[in-house]
């Protein structure tokens, strides 16, 4: 096993623990069994030309995305995005609200204010846990806003992401399971170069502790 894959395994482990905490809280709120898993983690260097961010999004070729974005500031400023395929979110919201799922409710991708509020709350819980864990690992203090929820098409969203100033981004694949419905999403967190180095240093420390 090479150095890089061990680092990713450790990151995955750490983020799965925080995802578990978020899932417990969401299960308690909705009264349903919710499982959150982070099956994979990777760090991307935006300056490398062969990187296609769309390869890391929940919908590979087309379709709208529902994105919850938290801005953070203080020791590190940037954004964290939780991205889900919009077409699956209607059912997902109904399940969270313990409402019956009707076909006619899912005919359009028009979301109501109630839908946005539900996603804002869920996105807030998930992103808080992930950012909380990131700030713990980096040993820095972050102050963050409530999520802003928007529906994007892929081109607009990818363009918005590419325009960011940070060279590195932390990409977490997330699987959300509620009842028998499984939704795959992605979390993208801005990382400054200094933060990346600090993150890798922390992971190496965890690794060293593991093998003592």
């Amino acid at each position, binding site marked *: 096993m090479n150095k890089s894959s061990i680092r990713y395994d450790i990151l995955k482990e750490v983020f799965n623990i925080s995802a578990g905490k978020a899932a417990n809280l969401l299960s308690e709120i909705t009264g349903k069994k919710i499982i959150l898993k982070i099956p994979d983690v990777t760090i991307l260097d935006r300056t490398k030309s062969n990187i296609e961010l769309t390869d890391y999004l929940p919908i590979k070729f087309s379709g709208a995305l529902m994105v919850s974005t938290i801005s953070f500031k203080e020791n590190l400023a940037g954004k964290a995005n939780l991205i889900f395929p919009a077409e699956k979110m209607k059912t997902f919201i109904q399940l969270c609200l313990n409402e019956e799922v009707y076909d006619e409710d899912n005919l359009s991708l028009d979301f109501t204010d*109630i839908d946005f*509020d539900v996603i*804002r*709350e869920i996105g807030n819980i998930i992103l*808080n846990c992930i950012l909380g864990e990131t700030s713990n690992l980096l040993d820095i203090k972050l102050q963050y806003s409530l999520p802003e929820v928007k529906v994007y098409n892929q081109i607009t969203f990818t363009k918005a992401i590419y325009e960011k100033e940070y060279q590195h981004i932390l990409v977490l694949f997330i699987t959300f399971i509620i009842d028998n419905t499984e939704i795959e999403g992605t979390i993208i967190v801005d990382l400054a170069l200094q933060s990346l180095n600090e993150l890798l240093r922390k992971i190496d420390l965890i690794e060293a502790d593991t093998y003592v």
Partner: protein
Amino acid sequence: MYNCCCEVLNSVNEGIIIVKENLEVYSWNSYMEYITNIKGSSAIGNNLYTVLPSLNKNYFKKTVHNILNDGYTMFFSAAMHRDLMDTEENYNIKISKIQDKNNTFMLLEFHNVTGQMAQIKQLKKYIKELYNVNKELKKKEKVIENLAYYDQLTGIANRTLFYILAEKYLQNAKRNGSLLGIMFIDIDKFKSINDTYGHQIGDKIIIKAANILKEATRESDIVVRYGGDEFIVILPNIKDISDCKIVASKINNRTGNIVYMKDKEIKLSFSMGISIYPNDGDNIDKLIGKADKAMYIAKRNDEDVHYY
């Protein structure tokens, strides 16, 4: 300054509570008094959960712990937390930590979304009604389409649908350079059966004939009731005339070509005429005309089938 802040909070059109780190209520604005019917003087100085027992839930307490310890700002949507406030109205709740030099406070904001939720509920009701009306219309459209294109007695394609499909298959055959067979069929001695046994039995015979033709032909063939006791089978993608022969022989040699009545049974047989594109014509009318003629020759010569 404190009084000024209180005035500001009292003029805000949302409920605001400020609690100390130990969850003792520090400030309670006028809108909060309106929402809860609890006077600020009764709330201030008391524990948050004592004043608002509906907030005393495990997940809420966990969240409050996270807010105070990690500085998270949390949001509780009215839709997901209908029981978080003991009122008829619906509130989105936002909670954040406020830190000054020496003290930690927690700010709870209650934003009334009752009107919004009622409007959305109403809108959803209208959408549901429209959806049902639309569904009903689509069903009726289907029935109308069925009446226009399918024979009501036998359920197979009628003459209108025949011309649409035949044209389509002819164009395909022209494009692909393939053969298209048109088989004209009528029931032998149908007039005499009808006259002898009446129209009800006549209808029974027609239905039986349609079923025989459907069963004896290939899945890709189209069986049409052309009118009266006349049927047409469209035979697309045939290799040569022998394919038509096979279909014709299957039609007349089925063992089940019998209609049973109370004390009688009628054995059905058919006369068939076949024409083939491109040999016998390059349009549907010509092909039908020749298949029809071939069928009369078959009938006259007492044959099962005749090729033009």
